[in-house]
């Protein structure tokens, strides 16, 4: 119980940075989706850290932070479900889950 709030926040920032790094560097769509989950969970940690500090100040817990965390977990799950469904649809067409097989962002399409 003696972990200071700052440390929790720093940990969550590190998690967020790892998620961001994974998003930017990895080409596997499933890993990319996992990175996004990591970023959301970093946010959850920060929410709980904040909630704990405010609880300590107020002398009792306030529901807001933990409620937010539950919802974010749910959102993350739904996002993963939709994301994975799309990955499967993509895999059926291309037999790969690599983002490199997407046509590059920003390229003008002359194909059509």
């Amino acid at each position: 119980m003696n972990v200071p709030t700052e440390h929790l926040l720093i940990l969550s920032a590190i998690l967020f940075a790892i998620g961001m790094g994974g998003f930017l560097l990895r080409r596997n769509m499933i890993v990319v989706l996992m990175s996004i989950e990591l970023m959301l969970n970093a946010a959850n940690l920060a929410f709980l850290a904040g909630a704990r500090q405010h609880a300590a100040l107020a002398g009792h817990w306030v529901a807001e932070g933990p409620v937010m965390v539950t919802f974010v977990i749910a959102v993350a799950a739904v996002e993963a479900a939709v994301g994975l469904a799309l990955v499967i649809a993509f895999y059926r067409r291309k037999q790969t889950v690599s983002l490199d097989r997407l046509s590059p962002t920003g390229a003008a399409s002359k194909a059509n």
Partner: protein
Amino acid sequence: MFALQDLHLQGLSLLSPELTLVTTALVVLMMDLIWKERDSWRLGAIGLVGLGAAALQLVSAHGTQGTAFGLVSIDNFGGFFKLFTSAATGVCIVFVMLDRRERRHRIGEYYFLLLSAAIGIFFMVGTYNLLLLVLGLELASLASYSLAGFHKGEKRSAEAAMKYVVFGGLSAGVMVFGISLLYAVTGTLDMRVMSGALAIDPVGEGVARSLAVALEQSPGMVALAMILILGGFSFKISSAPFHFWAPDVYEGSPTPVTTFLAVASKAGGFGALMRFFGVLFVAPDVGEMVAAYRNEIGMVLALVAAATMTLGNLAALRQTSLKRMLAYSSVAHAGYVLVGVAAMNQAGMEASLFYLAAYYFMNLGAFGFLLYFSGVTGRETLESLRGMGPKAPMITVPMVIFLVSLTGIPPMVGFTGKLQLLYAAMGPAEGLQLGWLAVCLGLNSVISLYYYMRVVRVLFLEDSDEPRPEPQVPMAVFLCLMAFLTVWFGLFFTPLLDLARSGMDLLT
């Protein structure tokens, strides 16, 4: 904590537009399972009736102030965006019904997803609570991901959905992390508590601090949180630096979905963004500390606006596909709307609302034109429009009006919108000089003229032997109506001004 008596009927009656939409969406889903039709116009009609009913309730609730369940705020500002969303979603449903390419598909889910996205936007623009804002935003986004990939057999559509979900997920992560930091420093998720407008924490007896206090204690955290949250919004409104997904997704999605993303979804993003920054920084009683911070936020927004419009317009210059060009144009227009927000005052917010209303008419018209021609020719290139101008004047002449309006030339509504924005950017400011932004906006209009006029050139100035396109009367009627309104509101825009002004109850 909620008391049970909060759940009484008054809260529900305030939520009647949302409830109507939820019911409609469910009915559509059920009837789809019962009727099992392809290309069912009946389902579309149900959706339209539901949206119409919601819109009527919104109009009749105009001027009502209230809070349902401590989370959903009913005000004119939210009403504006909800009305906008239902009107835009209605047009998208009509587009689905008119889209010749959709004849092959079971499209019940299509309507259901459109309605769900609309419900998401309703909650996103109608709340001061960041939790509900995130939930609404996610509902809208999740429905949009599926919509973007609706033609799952098509390569472009599948890719568009994939990109959309990846970048959408990233922006959600960024935004939620930003909100978590803001929560950590303020101890509340309610924007009004942060702004100090609500003294008592409505959720509980917590130790919420206002943003002013938080700014004093940990300015770095607040700045980081603001930038992250802005990044999240930036994705939704497709502004720089998170605009690069937009052209690919817009191009790959079915055209009615593109329309939804470019009009309804973008406006929803603006609604949430304007509420967030409006309440936290622009409202009259924010206090000295926050007011000092306001100019920095305004400058960041102004830079984002300038970058967005310039990048969007420059990229649009090079496009050979009409759809992709309209996608970049809609990025540029996000930049224009942001000019009003960047002014960080009431006049600016009003101008942004006005411009969004103008954007509704001209952009829906332009996308209707795109839908018609891609249905006729099966292609979306500018080339395929060659010489079509005189062959289908009821479709192409309105398109000229939309393009002129998008450029911002009078007497079209796009011009009056830009006038308001310039007005806001050049208006009296306390320490925030945005005159350069006005010049930037003007120059961008000139750049945009070039690519908008390219469409006109291909349509009217070049010849081809292509046969006369097969007419589609409902689309022609729709386009002529939109064109008429584009001109009418360009000349007599007092109603739109009043509408935008009434939305400013946000700041009182």
